[in-house]
């Protein structure tokens, strides 16, 4: 899954591919194997950290059935792939109406002279149909139109509940080959779904694919729940639950729906985050007017105290290598960001800009930290380097909060709340995502108001 394979000097005469296999778990019942070939073609690369770039035009043919004509499931899959790629802001889909007839099957080499005039850099061709047993049979080839070479190909089968995931995985291959970056389409979002009057808001945990499909609720709404966070396997969610009017951090097993309260303390636990290995949780414990950061061993549920001050220390987030923790504290008089060793030692303030800073989240790449900033009656989502330099603001609004990273560290999701009038009108609360260069801000579709998003790692 990295660009080294692409840039490896594989000299191929006839586009013969270097094969590798990837295990893809599509659902609990079905394992299936994708063979992916990569050739040593020079593909288009871009570095979005340099700023806004023109999107890469790709042509995504409707996947065909055994008769060589687009199949119903093939059209659906092509649409999902196209929507994923376009949503990143890094790709544009060549209008299929402008298509010259694409090859009738992925095994046929396209006539590249038909595609070059359309400006397309890549052409994705595939077949997809349901066999006699109702299983999806799928194959695809990604062509580099400039070098006229096959860059990636693969195939497999899945039951029908896996159709969307297969499509996201193919979109991930295309994204990876053309950006040289790790992908993020085969991921999920857990968040808080909101409904009801402003002063008695009903909040439920909900989960969905990153494109908003396959939405389902995880809690009933009976208890107030806040701030869900994925474990590194994406199998569990840690969150704050007001069950019995005793706010505490709980763990939810997504597959079984089982919940477990994490320990019992004389005080309120909240603001949970997993360590990169998933063996520990860091969180806040508020007691007697002071809030400190603690670490819990998830096997023994034993606690160790990391900060010890009369101030509020909260919103801790691990560096991806587990060596450091960034957190929010008012120990200097106002909310600012601090970094400390994972042991709690060597606390150092990093935010020195104007205003108050909160909700720091370490990028999965390790090099920057996302945060919420409050300044002059406005809220902002921004990023800064780990030493506090290089602050850049990516989104603003009356209330924007709670950034969460796509697993490749290229996209941030957060929520925005509009102002509420005295009669309770307004206050729309929605999820948004933005490229870390600050362009391509898009609303994420949810069935109701939504807050506190958490992006999963790539699914396994």
């Amino acid at each position, binding site marked *: 899954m990295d660009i080294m394979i692409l840039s490896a000097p594989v000299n191929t005469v006839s586009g013969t591919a270097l094969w590798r296999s990837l295990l893809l778990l599509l659902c609990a019942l079905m394992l299936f194997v994708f063979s992916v070939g990569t050739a040593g073609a020079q593909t288009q690369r871009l570095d979005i950290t340099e700023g806004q770039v023109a999107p890469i035009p790709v042509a995504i043919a409707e996947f065909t059935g055994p008769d060589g004509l687009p199949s119903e499931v093939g059209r659906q899959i092509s649409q999902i792939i196209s929507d994923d790629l376009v949503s990143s802001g890094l790709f544009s889909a060549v209008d299929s109406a402008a298509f010259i007839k694409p090859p009738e099957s992925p095994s046929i080499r396209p006539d590249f002279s038909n595609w070059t005039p359309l400006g397309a850099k890549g052409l994705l061709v595939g077949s997809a149909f349901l066999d006699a047993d109702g299983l999806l049979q799928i194959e695809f080839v990604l062509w580099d139109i400039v070098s006229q070479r096959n860059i990636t190909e693969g195939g497999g089968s899945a039951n029908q509940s896996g159709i969307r995931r297969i499509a996201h995985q193919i979109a991930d291959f295309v994204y990876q080959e053309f950006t040289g970056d790790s992908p993020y389409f085969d991921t999920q979002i857990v968040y808080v779904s909101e409904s009801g009057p402003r002063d008695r808001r009903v909040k439920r945990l909900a989960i969905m694919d990153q494109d908003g499909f396959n939405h389902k609720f995880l809690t009933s709404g009976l208890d107030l729940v806040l701030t869900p966070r994925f474990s590194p396997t994406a199998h569990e969610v840690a969150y704050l639950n007001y069950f019995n009017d005793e706010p505490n951090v709980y763990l939810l097993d997504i597959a079984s729906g089982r919940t477990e309260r994490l320990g019992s303390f004389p005080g309120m636990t909240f603001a949970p985050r997993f360590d990169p290995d998933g063996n520990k949780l860091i969180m806040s414990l508020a007691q007697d007017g002071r809030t400190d950061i603690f670490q819990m061993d998830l096997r023994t549920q034993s606690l160790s105290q990391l900060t010890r001050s009369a101030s509020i220390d909260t919103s801790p987030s691990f560096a991806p290598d587990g060596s450091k923790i960034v957190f929010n504290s008012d120990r200097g008089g106002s909310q600012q960001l601090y970094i400390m060793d994972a042991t709690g030692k060597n606390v150092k303030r990093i935010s020195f800009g104007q205003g108050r800073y909160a909700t720091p989240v370490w990028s999965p790449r390790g090099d920057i930290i996302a945060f919420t900033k409050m300044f002059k*009656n406005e809220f902002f989502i921004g990023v800064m380097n780990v030493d506090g330099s290089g602050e850049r603001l990516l989104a603003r609004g009356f209330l924007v909060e709670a950034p969460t990273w796509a697993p490749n560290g290229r996209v941030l999701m957060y929520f925005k709340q509009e102002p509420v009038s005295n009669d309770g009108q307004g206050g729309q609360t929605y999820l948004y995502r933005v490229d870390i260069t600050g362009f391509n801000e898009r609303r994420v579709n949810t069935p109701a108001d939504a807050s506190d998003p958490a992006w999963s790692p790539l699914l396994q």
Partner: protein
Amino acid sequence: MIKRFLPLLAASALFAACETASTTSGDATSSAATSSQAQAQASASSETGSAGLTAENQLASVGDTVLFGFDSASLTDSAQATLNRQAAFLQASPTLRVLIGGHADERGTREYNLALGERRAAATRDYLVAKGVNSARIRIISYGKERPMAVGSNESAWSKNRRAVTALN
């Protein structure tokens, strides 16, 4: 899509069965009292005071809410006056227990405001204890910015929402 929820709902229904007796909101200031508050208030109301008022009404008449400045948990003179009356009331009714809910306005981040609400509730409790109320009679909880008393994105509403509310428990 509903179908896909069914296994989960079945699981949460079991869970829910265990918690129906508990409160869902617990917001002391909410006009729609939740079931456990209603129960607590029903039992408390059997202890009528000298004036024939329920304990709940007496607490309301001495003032159940104190307000705070922005990002502050300091008790103002006015807040201290209210808490002096609360302390006197609680000492006159030694069997009552209370829950102090700490709240914040919406102009802060969720997790920080949970801590700020706890700080406000603790400051309120500490004042009552200093005035002689047994700390074992007081439980505190923070709702952060989750349960505003006044709806609206303006300073008037925000100033009413930065509060600690004492309720019978």
